[in-house]
């Protein structure tokens, strides 16, 4: 007769429960099974009959087990009592469920416990120390009443909690108890367990815990603190929970993960995970040396899943992730840079930028005719087309797709008032956008163009209006993008400093001083050009102050190198 007894709470997949029970008894461990009284009488009697040939399997008095209610505790109590009474050799009682699966040979667990004859393995922490409670109820579990089911009577449940909070109704916690919580699955010594079950004040405790919320996570956890001489506050059962407090389920493809965990028992196992049941219930060769349970690897897999469900991948829009306005956690997947006016002011700015920063530099992605991808591509990563119609049909999707598809390589593109403007708010709200604007630079191509002056005037007025509106957006309180803007006059006064700042931010790892400056276009006569516009009634404001006498054109001003320490 073994010193380890198994109490098993079962409500579905009875065939699997039987299989596991037989596995325990094969190693000499007696098993007491509690079957939920919601299971039909006929199914139950068939189950009892099929286990009848095994003297080590017995069945306890049945209770109705609803999640979060007292029934589960009552079931554990009566099954444990039966275990302690009928099997006097049992020193440790292990509480498990029908969906638990022993991962290591039973003998290893028996030996492990024999080495620690006085230790109670029960996760038990005070309410202040746990972070995993669902629904924000931690200490209130013990001071409010919960007569309604959370699963089936949610509205009543919530209303009653609210009412009690509002009226200040509180329950008194029985003297001597300090509420503790922890995993429902424990392994207690005979001494501790019998002290709990035979306590003269048990009636008082039971009455109190009957209306505590989720008593199966607190009844034994609290009372064990009264009697145990040595509590190991951890569960021997590997059990992972998702963000709503539901246990994760193990499938065949978790086989290797479970093997490597060195845990004694895992739950919940999918009842049809044939491979898991086959491999773990077969005669296993024991490990070379006794290993401590190490659930770390499994932890990572499952906490990643929780992270994915609650936070998701930034900048991804898909059939199961479509965040509402404001809940995106980053509108795009990665940082990118928008340059406005730079390619008007500098010759071959894109080529220069690409060499200087080692990023991918596109032309005007939002040009009216087509999206000017880098290297003149007509289609780019993710089979994103350069068609203006497709792009303008959903510009947000266009940009977020581009950034998503090119994860790992920073993207830069040119923008300006000549382009379609529907993307402005998106750019402004995106914390990943680095937007640098030289205001009024759009006048340079007009200045150098061969258009009639009347047309130039109209166009200048149009562009100025568009850019003013855009600047309003960029300076709004909702703007999260990193926006920098200079007037054209300001910028050409000292172009290297702003360029260095922008580049440092784009590629901090390659922080080096700019050696080669981009070539500025010839602005001789630009001041006069602006004056001509003014004379014709169109007042260009966004460029800043340009003297009419053409200081910039005539003066061949060498660039001052920034940060030059001598």
């Amino acid at each position, binding site marked *: 007769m073994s010193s380890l007894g198994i109490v098993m709470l079962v409500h579905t997949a009875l065939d699997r429960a039987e299989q596991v029970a037989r596995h325990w008894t094969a190693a000499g461990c007696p098993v007491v099974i509690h079957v939920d009284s919601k299971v039909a009488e006929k199914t139950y009697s068939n189950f009892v009959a099929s286990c009848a040939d095994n003297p080590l399997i017995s069945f306890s008095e049945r209770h109705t087990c609803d999640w979060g209610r007292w029934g589960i505790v009552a079931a554990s109590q009566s099954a444990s009592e039966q275990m302690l009474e009928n099997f006097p050799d049992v020193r440790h009682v292990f509480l498990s469920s029908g969906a638990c699966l022993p991962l290591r040979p039973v003998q290893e667990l028996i030996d492990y416990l024999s080495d620690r004859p006085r230790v109670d393995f029960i996760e038990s922490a005070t309410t202040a120390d746990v972070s995993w409670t669902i629904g924000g109820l931690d200490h209130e579990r013990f001071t409010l009443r919960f007569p309604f089911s959370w699963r089936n009577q949610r509205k009543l449940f919530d209303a009653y909690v609210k009412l009690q909070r509002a009226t200040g109704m509180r329950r008194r916690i029985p003297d001597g108890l300090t509420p503790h919580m922890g995993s429902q699955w424990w392994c207690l010594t005979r001494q501790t367990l019998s002290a709990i079950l035979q306590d003269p004040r048990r009636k008082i405790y039971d009455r109190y815990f009957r209306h505590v919320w989720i008593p199966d996570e607190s009844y034994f956890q609290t009372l064990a603190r009264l009697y145990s001489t040595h509590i190991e506050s951890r569960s021997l059962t590997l059990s992972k929970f998702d963000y709503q407090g539901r246990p994760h389920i193990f499938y065949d493809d978790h086989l290797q993960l479970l093997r490597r965990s060195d845990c004694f028992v895992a739950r919940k196992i999918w009842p049809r995970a044939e491979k898991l049941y086959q491999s773990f219930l077969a005669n296993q060769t024991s490990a070379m040396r006794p290993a401590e349970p190490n659930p770390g690897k499994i932890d990572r897999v499952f906490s990643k899943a929780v992270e994915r469900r609650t936070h998701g991948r930034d900048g991804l829009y898909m059939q*199961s992730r479509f965040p*509402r306005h404001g809940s995106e956690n980053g509108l795009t997947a990665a940082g990118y840079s928008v340059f406005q006016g730079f390619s008007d002011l500098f010759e071959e700015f894109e080529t220069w930028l690409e060499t200087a920063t080692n990023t991918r530099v596109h032309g005007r992605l939002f040009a009216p005719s087509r999206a000017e991808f880098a290297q003149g591509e007509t289609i780019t990563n993710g089979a994103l087309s350069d068609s203006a119609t497709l792009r303008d049909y959903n510009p947000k999707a266009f940009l977020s797709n581009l950034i998503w598809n090119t994860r790992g390589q920073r993207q830069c593109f040119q923008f300006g008032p000549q382009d379609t403007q529907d993307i402005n708010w998106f750019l402004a709200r995106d914390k990943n956008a680095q937007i640098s604007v030289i205001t009024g630079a759009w006048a340079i191509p007009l200045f150098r163009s061969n258009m009639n002056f009347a047309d130039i005037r109209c166009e200048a007025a149009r562009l100025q209006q568009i850019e003013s509106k855009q600047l309003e957006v960029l300076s709004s309180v909702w703007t999260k993008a990193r926006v920098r803007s200079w007037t054209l006059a300001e910028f050409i006064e000292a172009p290297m400093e702003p360029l260095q700042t922008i580049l440092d931010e784009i590629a901090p790892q390659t922080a080096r001083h700019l050696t080669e400056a981009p070539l500025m276009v010839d602005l001789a006569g630009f001041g006069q050009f602006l004056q001509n516009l003014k004379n014709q009634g169109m007042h260009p404001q966004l460029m800043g102050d340009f003297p009419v006498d053409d200081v910039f054109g005539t003066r061949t001003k060498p660039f001052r190198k920034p940060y030059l320490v001598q």
Partner: protein
Amino acid sequence: MRLRRKRRLVRCVKRRRELKPVSTNTAAIRPDDVLLMSVVRNEKIRLPFFLEYYRKLGVNHFLFVDNDSGDGSLEFLRTQPDVSVWQTKTSYKKAGFGLDWSNYLLRNYAHGHWVLTVDPDEFFIYPFCDTRPISALTDWLDSCAVRSFGTMLIDMYPEGPVDDEPYHEGQDPFEITRWFDAGNYMISKNPEYKNLWIQGGPRARVFFQDNPSKAPALNKIPLVKWDRRYVYISSTHSLLPRGLNQVYDEWGGEKTSGALLHAKLINTLGEKAREEMQRNQHYRGSGEYKAYAKQLEEQPVFRCDWSEQYINWRQLEILGLMSKGNWA
């Protein structure tokens, strides 16, 4: 909305006489079975692989409506033991593009079951589909109290023009159509039914680049724990009650989702397009098929330098075309 749903229900029940049972093995359906519902017309060539694929996933019973096939589809289906098939010779268009028929059969046979509603050229992919049967997914959805499962239709295409490599009966169509577009999908929310409206992919890129609003919808909700009060209202794009369309997370997280690999772009497309144009039985006056027929004459090639070659579901999950969510 309730009225709309009721009207749909009444409509589908009215049309029940159009369906003539040919082979009904529905008595064999057990309570936990996963079912599959499909309306077919002249798809004989696709059916053997289709059945094989879904049997392997763990679908237990198939419900088919055969809309006046002349190619032996019906004869093939009636010999299958796990298939129930109904025949109808009436108009596909008048039956709400076949929805009335499937809604009726779903109402009668799928109540309380998880059921996949797919076309014969759609192949369901979900996280871990290579290691876990479909019942693992539905059990898990049950335990999370989730009633519907969202997917996106991914158009698969061949290396060259669609006519280049003919498809043989029983063949895996993805041996031919191995390529897909990874990142050019456009999503908006349909405020009326709260479903997402996804467009894009190769068909939008090649056929509809001048008129993207007409590009076909790619959002699909094919897997539902059916209740007799539910109805599909527009293909499998949306359902009523509207709560079933909420297959996406709106607070930044990712729900678990899958994909439907679409093997439409094979050599049978041209023939189909010509036939559908004459019948004029498809959505929006078969506009989609008109576009195909016209443009297919130019022998378009969908494959481009940035096309992805299909490997497995993990690839799709990394590309962001589906998600494991919190199923691990």
